[in-house]
Structure formats: C-alpha cells, structure tokens
C-alpha cells in the first residue's frame, strides 16, 4: 500500500509537468485555435536558456524568473511574426508552420549547445520524507508545489483580472470583443506569451529529474502533454490539469505493476485515451461546439 502511494505521489509530480505543458497547449488552442506542435521545443529552448544563465553564475531564482520573462517575449514574438501571418490560411498550413518551428528550435538548440548533455540543478533538496511508511521525495513535493502555484496564479489571472477576462472574451468571441475595445491581436500574443512561460516552467522542473538533458528533452513530455490535453478536453484548462495528473499517476502505476505493459506504457496510455474519446469525443471536460449552418 505504501508502495502504491509512493507511485501515486511521484505520478502526481510527473503529472504536474504534463499538466503545465498541457495547459500551455490548451491556452493556445482556446485563444488562437492552433494546435502548437512546437510547444515542447519552445519549453526545451527555455530550459537551455535557464541552463545558460545558471552557467554564467546567476543565482537560481534570478535565472528562473529571467528565463520566464525571456520565454514570454519569445512566445509573443512567435505569435506576432509567424502565427499571425498564417492565421488566415488553411489548417494544414498552420500545422506545418508549427512543425517547421519544432524542427528549427530543436536544431537551433543542438547547434548552440553543441548537442551535448547538460545538467540543470534543482532548486529543491534531494531529501526524502518518511510519512507513515511512505517515502516521498522533496523533489516531487517541490514540483507539485510549483505546478500548483502556477496553476492557481493563472486561474486567478483569468478569473479575477480585467485583462484575464479580456483574453477569455477574445478567445470566445473576437468580433464582439473588438466592439468592446479589446485589442484582440494583443490578447492572442499575450496568450502565446503565457503559454511559453508555462512551458518554460515545465521544462525547468523536469530537466533535473532526468539526470542530464539535451535538445530532445521535451519530445516525450510533449506527447504525454498532448495526451493529457486531449483526455481533458482541448478547450478545458481544468481538463488539462486533471488530464495531466491522471495520466502521470496511471502511467506510473501501470509501469510499476503491470509487467506486460512496462515498455508499452505510451501506447497503452494512448489506447486508453482513444477509448475514452470514443465515449466523449471532446475529452472529459471539453465542450462540443454546436455548429450553426
């Protein structure tokens, strides 16, 4: 039993990372209607930037927040320069642009940092706590805490601030929003900036857990994040968080206890999600859009 709880806790921690990236994907999908295949690579690039800042001697939290700021700007620039330009094109064109961005960022990271393995320090101590027989790593608790804090801050932003409301409105009904003075294109750029920040945090949290990382850090995480976003519903931020955590826990438990599925974790998870989609084609919390002709 203690064993199971351990797996659950570390599953929640890895799920937290998936949730953050899934939240980024959902944020962008909701506001701009784009599935951003480059989300993971943007996060990876931010992680490298953090590494670079730390390597140059900046204290951890300075590097952390500076990276977030840089990532925000990066997200805004990508939206303004690339996405806006193709926003009127057909879906396949926009998807291909994000794919091109994925390839470009991966290559750029390999080029700049020479494709070598790097290590990112963790801000959390490596202690473990014994809580009634269950061994919990401080690392996992830290990841859960940061993820939770970020989700709450974001929630407060969207639900309680004027700009957050404007962003939501711009995503739901851009035409009407304009009539109310909302600068919709700025809101979209803001959405991409915030998503980039979410991704950056996800990357910075996950990198230390891998031991060392290179430009391929986020590719598996991206896949799990997509799975989580689809599971929860592509237009549901709550779904992204729930989906991420559930996925993290389920993957951990399956990987630990079901032998046959040990190396089939990923396909098993995907199969499960496909099954759920058959029952709920818009994910657990997604809305089905009523189309008017």
């Amino acid at each position, binding site marked *: 039993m203690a064993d199971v709880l351990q797996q659950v806790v570390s599953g929640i921690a890895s799920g937290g990372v998936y949730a953050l990236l899934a939240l980024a994907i959902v944020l962008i999908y909701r506001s701009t209607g784009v*599935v951003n295949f480059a989300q993971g690579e943007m996060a990876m690039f931010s992680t490298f930037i953090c590494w670079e800042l730390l390597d140059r001697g900046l204290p951890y939290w300075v590097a952390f927040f500076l990276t977030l700021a840089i990532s925000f700007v990066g997200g805004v620039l990508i939206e303004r320069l690339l996405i806006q330009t193709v926003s009127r094109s*057909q*879906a396949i*064109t926009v998807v291909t642009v994000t794919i091109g961005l994925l390839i470009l960022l991966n290559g750029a990271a390999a080029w700049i940092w020479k494709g070598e393995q790097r290590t990112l320090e963790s801000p959390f101590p490596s202690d473990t706590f014994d809580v009634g027989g269950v061994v919990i790593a401080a690392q996992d608790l830290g990841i859960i805490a940061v993820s939770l804090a970020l989700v709450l801050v974001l929630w407060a932003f969207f639900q309680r601030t004027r700009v957050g409301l404007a962003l939501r409105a711009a995503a739901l009904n851009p035409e009407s929003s304009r009539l109310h003075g909302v600068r919709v294109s700025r809101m979209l750029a803001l959405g991409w900036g915030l998503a980039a920040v979410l991704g950056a945090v996800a990357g910075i949290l996950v990198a230390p857990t891998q031991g060392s990382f290179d430009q391929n850090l986020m590719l598996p995480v991206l896949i799990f994040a997509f799975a989580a976003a*689809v599971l929860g519903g592509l237009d549901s931020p709550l779904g992204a968080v729930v989906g991420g955590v559930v996925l993290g826990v389920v993957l951990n438990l399956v990987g630990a206890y079901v032998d046959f599925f040990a190396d089939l974790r990923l396909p098993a998870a995907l199969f499960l999600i496909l099954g759920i989609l058959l029952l709920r084609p818009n994910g657990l919390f997604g809305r089905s859009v009523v189309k008017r002709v």
Partner: protein
Amino acid sequence: MTAFRYALRALGFALFVAIVVFLPFRLSDFRASEFALIGIYFIAILGLNVLTGYTGVISLGHGAFMALGAYTTAILVTDHGMRDIWTIPLAGLLAAAAGAAFGLPALRLSGPYLALATFGVAVATPIVIKKFDGLTGGSGGINLFEADGITGLPEFLVTLPGGKVLSFNDWLYYLTWTIALVLFAVAWAIHHSRFGRSLRAIRDNEIAASASGVWLASHKTLAFSISAFYAGVAGSLLAISAFSVQPGAFPVERSIALLVGLAVGGLGSLAPLAAGAAFLVFLPQWAQDISKAPGVPAVIYGAVLIVLMIVLPMGVGGLLRRITGPLTSRLYPRS
C-alpha cells in the same frame, strides 16, 4: 470540360510520363534510387491528399500504414517466399483494411482531436512493432537480402534499347514510378468522380453535405481507407527498396513528413504533389550540404519550411494555379 482542356491535360500527362521514362537515362545510379524514393513519397502523399485535400481530415499517422505495408511485404517475402511485386497490392489492401477499421470509430472525432489521435498512433507505431517481436523481428527487424522473391537483382540485368543497362536502382525507379503513375491516374479519376465531388462537399460544408444526402461516415471512412491503401503500397515499396524493415524506419517523423510533403506540394493538387515529395528527399540533403554542424541542417530545414508556408500557403500547387489560372482558367478547382 471542353475538348481543348482535355487535350491540354492529356498533353501534360504525356509529358510527365515521358520525363519519368527517360529520366534514368540522364541520371546516375544513386540519383535513380533517390528519384525512386521521391516516387514512394509521391504515392503516399497522393493518398494523404485524398483524405486531407478532399475531406479536410488531418492525419499525422499515415506512417503507421506505411509500416504496415512494409512489414506485410517483408513477412510475405521472407516467411512465405512470395515474389516481392505481388506483395505490393496485398500490402495496400491490408493497410486499407486497417484504415477502415481505424477510420470508422476515429472519424467521429473532430479536427484537432482526430489529428492528435493519429499522432498518437504514429508515436506508438515503432514501440508496438518492437514489442511484437515474434512477428516483426523486434528492433532488429526483417532482412530481405537473402530472400528468393526479390525481383530486379543483378541476375536480371536487362539492357534496354538505347544501350542503357538496367541496374537494380533503375529497376526500383521504374517499378515505383509505374505504380505511382497508375495510382496518380486513379487519384485523378477519383477527383473527377461523383465520389470525389461528394468528398469535396464534405470538406466545404459538412452539415450541408450531410443534409443533401451524402452519407458522411461511409464517405470519410472510404477516403481514409483509400489513403491508407496508398500509404501501404508506398511502405511496401520502401521495404523492397531498402531490402529491410525495422521499427526505426517508421518514427513519428515519417508520418509528419507526409503531412509536410502534402502542405508543400499543395493540398488539393495532384501532379504538384511530386514537388512535395521532392522537397522531402532533397531538402534535408541540401541542408546537409550547406553545413554538417550539429543542428544546422535542421535549422535550415525548419526555416525553409516556415518561409515556404508563409509565402506559399497553398503549396506549389497553389502557386501553379495562380500562374496558370488566367491562362487556362483553373485546371484544378480551388481548394
């Protein structure tokens, strides 16, 4: 369509065929194998176009059908001693069946959900292949070198009129492009058929199409199945040309590449899709020629792809349509 336009298109097609037939005479052996690969991608992209270009469904998973086709051929040739060319239609049919089986439930999902579901299939493919190693030979894959059923080997060297000695790569080239041209003609026929029109109606306005009596589920599934057939054939040819199959040959990148090739070629076009296939084969090489430093070829590839999509959002086909539009008032309907 007027007789004039028919004549124009027949002429264009004849020109295309002529180029295909005589190209190996001008190419080195290595280039012939490259062009064979272009032919393989051309087939797969033609198929993907039937799905995406006509119904609007975006699939990021057709590499899985290529894998299915490839492994079908590999297993039939090595374990059952079949001749390689007869396995090609079988690979296609098996892939088509898989496409129908997947499509029927999956097509209930809407755009991005379906795209991500297919993406999941593409991701899972190499893993699943490795897991069922009894059948697939696991990570090592299957080797076709020693098999009896391989046509076109040096034993069968043929000398064509004109003095050209047919090497294996030339054989591959002609095999691939003959099939490609046949399937191209089929795609063209589909485009002009009632079925094709119904598909385009679905793409343009699903609800209206449904209200006019187009049975959505069967049409979309059939389109999915046809696209899977093409991918299966392409995969089969891939196995034959590479003499082997392994899970590593079908990573997610392969599926994504097909979509990229379609976007570059131009959604809804036919012949220009060959340009998309050429892009897939030549651009990575060209990028490598510029610099082999780690990551730089990818940066070049990604940058070119992005710029291409910004400048030509409708692909090469779109560009051709814009240029020839005033001349021939639309050879292909606007997507």
